[in-house]
């Protein structure tokens, strides 16, 4: 049972480049989330989804887009990367039964 899997784990981008982070979960969860974690800032919610085909903005959505075409996948896109988007990105899915969040191992992104 893989749980929540994020790819890639590491990536270095140049300013202005685009990329997509993939999150996949095998627990049949409806709710999925993308967070970023920065030193001294804690986890901040970027976007989330309450089901296939739905997305919603979180606390810090600017500069990011998301898509939830399949229930098990939640994609986070950066159309034009900026150095301020250098961070560790975590995906999570939520169990409807217990309410707990299951996190992936993180994707470390550096924008030069």
């Amino acid at each position, binding site marked *: 049972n893989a749980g*929540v899997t994020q790819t890639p784990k590491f990536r270095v981008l140049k300013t202005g480049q685009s990329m997509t982070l993939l999150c996949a979960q095998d627990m049949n969860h409806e*709710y999925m*989330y993308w*967070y970023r974690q920065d030193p*001294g*800032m*804690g*986890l*901040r*919610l970027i976007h*989330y989804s*309450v089901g296939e085909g739905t997305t*919603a903005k*979180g*606390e810090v959505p600017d500069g990011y887009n998301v898509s939830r075409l399949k229930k098990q996948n939640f994609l986070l896109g950066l159309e034009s990367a900026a150095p301020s988007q250098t961070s560790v990105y*975590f995906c*999570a899915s*939520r169990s409807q039964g*217990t*309410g*707990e*969040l*299951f*996190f*992936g*191992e*993180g994707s470390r992104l550096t924008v030069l």
Partner: protein
Amino acid sequence: SQKIEQNSEALNIQEGKTATLTCNYTNYSPAYLQWYRQDPGRGPVFLLLIRENEKEKRKERLKVTFDTTLKQSLFHITASQPADSATYLCAYNAGNMFTFGGGTRLMVKP
């Protein structure tokens, strides 16, 4: 707006002692609070959930309390071990969103 705060300073304790971490929130009481553990380079892992109408919740050496009057949750680890060293995060839910505190780093020295 609702805020959730944890002591940003690291907590250093001796092995065998009880560690107590604090989570404070402003404004309204959330329906429930959650506590997570995060090790360096890893994603957070769920530990405990406590609901608004519950005073206390226990799981092995872990205990969580929820005081709606003080707007505070306390997280205790009894008989602490070096393996308990990690960052501990509290989180509350607002509708479908989960907001996390900044976390408190716990260091248990042998």
